[in-house]
């Protein structure tokens, strides 16, 4: 079994490097916003009422800022040719040296047996309003810190801290930034 030192050595070159952008399949739409607002019965008129929203300081219908994770989830199904189109549109956003696939931080964790993951903490900052008309959403991420191995309730694990950035396709505006602390662990046996 590999030692902790070699794990950290394997991870070090991958830290603080932005991964390639990915793109959502779909543009931000009023319909998706309404389906999301139905979940918690959110009646805020800047999400629903075009006249009210136009007169508001936002000037238009906006998405609930906290909808960012819902908007950027993977679709349930798409035809292959649509997947190709989304992937090639995303590839065009990435310089060649970023697009080259490198071993991901999570795959290195798996190589060293930290196979199970759980979210230990998360904070999201919403930097600008966004909504229909902004196109699709671009997302990229980087891991910025890896802890030493710790004894945790469920076994032995490492804490990975990563940052994701969210931008609008139209005008490339930075609309959100999330910081995620993920515990990757080897479950205790028996």
């Amino acid at each position, binding site marked *: 079994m590999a030692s902790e030192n070699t794990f950290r050595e394997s991870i070090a070159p991958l830290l603080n490097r932005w991964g390639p952008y990915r793109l959502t399949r779909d543009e931000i739409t009023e319909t998706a916003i309404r389906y999301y*607002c139905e*979940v918690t019965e959110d*009646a805020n*008129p800047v999400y629903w009422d075009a006249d009210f929203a136009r007169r508001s300081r936002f000037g238009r219908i906006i998405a609930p800022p906290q909808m960012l994770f*819902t908007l950027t989830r993977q679709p349930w199904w798409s035809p292959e040719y649509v997947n190709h189109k989304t992937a090639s549109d995303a590839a065009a956003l990435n310089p060649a040296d970023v697009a080259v696939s490198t071993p991901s931080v999570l795959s290195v964790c798996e190589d060293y047996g930290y196979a199970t993951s759980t979210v230990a*903490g998360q904070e*999201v900052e919403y930097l600008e*309003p966004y909504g229909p008309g902004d196109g699709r959403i671009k997302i990229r991420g980087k891991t910025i810190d890896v802890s030493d191995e710790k004894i945790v309730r469920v076994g032995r694990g490492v804490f990975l801290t990563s940052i994701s950035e969210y931008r609008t396709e139209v005008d490339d505006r930075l609309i959100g930034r999330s910081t995620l602390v993920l515990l990757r662990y080897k479950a205790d046996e028996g």
Partner: protein
Amino acid sequence: MSTHEQKSWHDIDELEDIGSLTFPITMRALMIDVAGTRDLYPIHHDRDFAKRNGARDIFVNTMFYEGLFGRIATDWAGPESFLRKLSFRMQGPNCLGDTIVSRGWVTKKYRQDDRKLVDLEIHLDNEIEKDATVASLTIELAM
């Protein structure tokens, strides 16, 4: 929300109560959660799967909490307020048949970069568990 009243930053006091919201977690609510947040992970809709994995029952997902905390904040501060920051801890699930009751208050009132901000703390309780979910938010006021 019929009047769309907008709260003024100047009128807010630290430690001010932001009121309470009650939300029953019915099967219908959980189905709307799956549809509206596009989350097919079975622990949120498959009761056998949830119980096999140690949960009391199926429960609402992370994106439900994001939506609920955002709603509680703008219901209180007004439609032109804007959520700037959100983090929360899921200490226990809110399951099918539970009723969520929220409590919240202003923890800080301040200006930063010309913005009028308040920090809020919001707790969600249910019949089984107090502090099932605990959130910290920063809201920018419109005026």
